[in-house]
């Protein structure tokens, strides 16, 4: 396989991790979040800043990113207890914008649009993880591990209680299930996994800047992957990630210039979102019936 194909496989894997992480929040806990790129950004910048500025080993950067993301995720889960879907969606949108604005404007820390370069390559047992070599195995290994963890969550009592809170919060509470525990857990787990994806991205690209896709369009793309694949369906969400991350490549094959292809891609996502909720609300592969 040539470099371009491998790069596509790798980036599809990172999208799959992101989509799976959002699936915990949107699919299992039922929190409509369109600020997910914030956690992705936190992971990427934690890795970049820790490794480049402080010379820390990559795993430490990842760990710091996960801890920061978990903290912010916990913070965001507090409004999710009191707010309904629509209010919550705007709160998460605002949260995502704030993190993006901070990445762009806090130049002394993040270098803003000029970016941070020289992020070291990951090493597994002192073997460097290169794009053509170990990278696809590492990334897709993470995808399958995460998918396995989600499967275990889905089939555990804890996961079932989480879904009970999603389906009917009041009924769940009447049976002694406390929503806060499940919403908080979902946000924290989802945030940490997204942060991990961000760290992978930073080490993969070795250079990140504030325009590397940490804004609303990334949040929307991940959200569209989850909705398209089917909320709460692990296979569906991974399939959604693969399908939607292939859209830019398909447009590229048509030879469209970037100025046309980028908005066109977004328009396709928008049309998919509308079409899915109107015609197939459970998503392409979802089996769940979302009742009123």
């Amino acid at each position: 396989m040539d470099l371009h194909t491998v790069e596509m496989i790798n980036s599809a894997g990172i999208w799959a991790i992101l989509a799976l992480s959002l699936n915990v929040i949107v699919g299992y806990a039922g929190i409509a979040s369109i600020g997910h790129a914030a956690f992705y950004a936190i992971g990427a910048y934690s890795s970049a800043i820790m490794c480049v500025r402080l010379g820390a080993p990559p795993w430490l950067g990842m760990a710091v990113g996960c801890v920061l993301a978990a903290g912010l995720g916990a913070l965001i889960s507090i409004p999710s207890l009191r707010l309904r879907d629509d209010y919550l969606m705007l709160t998460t949108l605002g949260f995502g914008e704030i993190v993006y604005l901070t990445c762009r404007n806090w130049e002394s820390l993040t270098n803003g649009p000029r970016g941070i370069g020289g992020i070291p390559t990951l090493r597994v047992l002192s073997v460097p993880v290169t794009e053509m070599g170990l990278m696809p195995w590492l990334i897709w290994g993470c995808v399958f591990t995460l998918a396995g963890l989600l499967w275990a969550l889905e089939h555990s009592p804890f996961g079932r209680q989480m879904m009970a809170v999603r389906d009917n919060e009041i009924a769940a509470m009447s049976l002694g299930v406390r929503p806060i525990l499940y919403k908080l857990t979902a946000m924290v787990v989802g945030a940490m996994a997204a942060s991990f994806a961000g760290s992978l991205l930073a080490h993969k690209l070795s250079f990140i800047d504030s325009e590397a896709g940490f804004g609303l369009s990334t949040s929307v793309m991940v959200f569209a992957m989850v909705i398209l694949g089917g909320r709460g369906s692990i296979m569906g969400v991974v399939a959604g990630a693969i399908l939607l991350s292939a859209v830019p490549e398909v447009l590229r094959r048509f030879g469209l210039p970037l100025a046309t292809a980028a908005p066109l891609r977004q328009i396709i996502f928008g049309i998919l979102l509308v079409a899915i909720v109107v015609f197939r609300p459970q998503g392409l592969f979802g089996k769940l019936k979302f009742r009123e």
Partner: protein
Amino acid sequence: MDLFLQFLINGLAIGAVYAIVAVGYSLIYGVLQCIAFSHADTCMVSGYVAYAAMALLGLPLPVAVLMAISAGALLGVIVERVAYRPLRHAPRIMPLISALGVSIILQNAAALLFGPQSRNIDIGVSSLRGIAISGAVLPAAEAVILITALILGIGLYFFLKSTRIGLAIRAVACDAEAAEVLGIPSQAIVSITFAVSSAVAAVGGLLVASAYDLFPTMGVLLGFKAFTACVLGGIRSLYGSIVAAVCLGVVENLAAGYLSSEYKDAYAFAILVGVLAVRPQGLFGASDRRI
């Protein structure tokens, strides 16, 4: 002091724009109990319609204004038909997702047609000198915003208060089923509400294009702030939303002036989260069911 007055004036103008958009959120929320996610994008599209009419086709201002308003109203009705009506009885999250989809389509269609750079339209006041108020200046374009917003506000007040359609909108907002029983076609009223709100938002789009910048993603932050104002004022309280929108514009401008302008857009978010955490029904406590 002069600086303070200047920030205050600029804040009032942008606050008036937020109010024009916030009114739409409030009205639509009244009849559908749903946040019209793509409402601020209607504003953006109308701005581009006016821009296309004036800058590309060379039409005179009044024609462009009429075109923008009709385009806005039409778009509002279409969006309601496509993205909201099929999902009236679906769980609340569904119309939000479809509206998000519409929002993305509109933003990127504008980017595709007009490019990502920002545009302006000249409504014939750019050459005028501003009005000097004890050391501060009220630019002519911002004066137009304030006057237009005032006229719109008064017009909307009488529309809702004294016309049969306004009465019907308030009736549906109060209790859609009871209104239906009394012979009010609530579906038609929802469409009319979308048309009216979107027409008002279209005027907002024109004002933004004349005094500030018009760009494809302007609806994201504009809508976010207008919605923050609605939450602040209590989303069911139309006049609460208007007052809160103006206050938000002023506070934001003062904070940008005295604290840091880079995080200008972050203040609204902080206010939103703070209010939602403490007082979700809004500062003016409109837990009653009027709009």
